[in-house]
């Protein structure tokens, strides 16, 4: 089990209290973006395409704390940009730990090893290191040779110092599922607590619009990746959400479950779409036309989305508010998901797509691995 019991207890009691109090909409994770500045320049990134004066702006610690206090989410994810470039990131993290929030500090880890002495290990703090696959895949993905090795150094040092560490990967069209499975072996061998993974989302502001999988292709890829798991693989995500990615479950998007706050305000309606901003979480809840978003709405901007910020919250809520969901969550935590059909997917030729534009040598495929 990748997620500590204390964190599960905090989230489960929070969800149950909200359910018992009849609260219709409430946040599970605050996506707190303190800045958009980044020390990578990944081609196609949909998050950092801003003029310099916007990239220089950052939230103050007080603004971060006010957002956290207002929405009350038990978990805070700090993406960006690169949060370790924020000059007051240590103060922000300390303030959130003092509030007993479970923090996922998302970082490309280029600065992690150097900055680690400024942080103190805590059950509330996890470094969530961006690794998009094996060395060659990651380096191409982030457009920097050597990026993987620097990140891995940071991971190993953080693990050695007793920090909680996870890795986060985003997969695009053309991803080789066999390589991803080998990648899981590699990162678990580094001693990380678990892996977080996501299909890419076609951000409107992304320079490229042709690398994003539709739902059918996402399900096929994740079925190939996540079936026939090795017992050593741990995932720092809801097992029900992973089943959603594999096509075994359906959920409706609840974007208010993981709201986003950044220098512009509270983002409408979610972390991925930018259709306006509210000055408070209350205003966000009251002024967003929620029925216009999610797959059921037919909105084409939501058509390919299977991302956690919309679909993991309903999985978590189901897991903690229904007996059936709870049992499925327990079963999913320990299952290896044996699936002969998925094994066949793994023996298909390497997929073609924009992600394979680079000539990466495929890792050697082991029969043992595919039959794990």
């Amino acid at each position, binding site marked *: 089990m990748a997620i500590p019991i204390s964190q599960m207890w905090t989230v489960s009691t929070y969800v149950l209290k909200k359910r018992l109090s009849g609260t219709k909409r409430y946040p599970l994770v605050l996506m707190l973006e303190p800045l958009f*500045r*980044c*020390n*990578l*320049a*990944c*081609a*196609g*990134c949909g998050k*950092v*395409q*801003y*003029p*310099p*004066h*916007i*990239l*220089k*702006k950052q939230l103050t610690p007080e603004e971060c704390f006010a957002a956290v206090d207002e929405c009350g989410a038990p978990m805070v994810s700090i993406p960006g940009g690169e949060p370790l470039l924020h000059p007051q990131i240590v103060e922000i993290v300390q303030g959130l730990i003092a509030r007993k929030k479970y923090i996922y500090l998302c970082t490309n880890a280029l600065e992690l090893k150097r900055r680690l002495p400024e942080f103190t290990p805590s059950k509330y703090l996890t470094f969530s290191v961006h690794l998009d696959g094996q060395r060659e895949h990651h380096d*191409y993905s982030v*457009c*920097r*040779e*050597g*990026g993987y090795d620097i990140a891995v150094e940071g991971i190993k040092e953080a693990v050695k110092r007793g920090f909680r560490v996870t890795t986060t990967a985003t997969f695009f*069209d053309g991803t080789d599922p066999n390589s991803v499975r080998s990648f899981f072996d590699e990162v678990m061998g580094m001693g990380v607590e678990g892996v977080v993974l996501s299909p890419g989302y*076609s951000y*409107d*502001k*992304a*320079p*490229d*619009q*042709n*690398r*994003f*999988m*539709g*739902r*059918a*292709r996402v399900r096929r890829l994740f079925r190939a990746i996540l079936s026939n798991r090795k017992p050593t693989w741990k995932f720092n995500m809801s097992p029900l959400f992973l089943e959603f990615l594999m096509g075994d479950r359906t959920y409706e998007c609840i974007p208010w479950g993981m709201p986003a706050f950044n220098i*512009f*305000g509270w983002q409408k309606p979610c972390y991925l779409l*930018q259709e*306006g*901003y509210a000055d408070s979480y209350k205003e966000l809840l009251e002024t967003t036309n929620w029925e*216009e978003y999610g*797959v*059921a*709405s*037919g*909105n*084409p*901007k939501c*058509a*390919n989305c299977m991302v956690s910020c919309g679909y993991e919250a309903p999985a978590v809520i189901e897991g903690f508010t229904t007996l059936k969901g709870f049992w499925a969550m327990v079963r999913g935590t320990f299952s290896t998901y044996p699936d002969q059909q998925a094994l066949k997917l793994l023996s298909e030729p390497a997929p073609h797509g*924009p992600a394979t*534009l*680079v000539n990466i040598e495929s890792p050697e495929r082991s029969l043992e691995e595919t039959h794990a």
Partner: protein
Amino acid sequence: MTAEVHKYTIAQVEALELAPAAEHEKLEGWVPDLATEDDLRHALSQALDYRGDVTLTLKNGERIEAFIFNCQSGPTLAESFLQYFTPTSPEKRKVGYADIARVEFTGKDRAAGKHWEDWVKAYNEKKAAGEKNIALHPEAL
């Protein structure tokens, strides 16, 4: 979402192999003709999506270089406003649609030239030239 947007059925969405792509027009340098209210609303909607600064000229003659991040479009221009940052001011600012006379897409499109294919081409060329530690670097701020 406007009424004209093509909506997908759930069956269509579930069967999608590739995501529908957003079309980005080349807006850098564009100065839209604002003959009607609809022209203004369309131009401001494009400015909201634009990945660079625009210059707004107000009806009182003031010119504002702005990164627009929020458009609240109401039933009338008087009830509609946008929010923006300027390169020199730390605070968010707000202006009503009814006060805007001209919109110019003067700033650089920050996504231009940042396609995946551009990176692959650059990488292959540098590799062929024997370069080591090939990387793209963020622009200096």
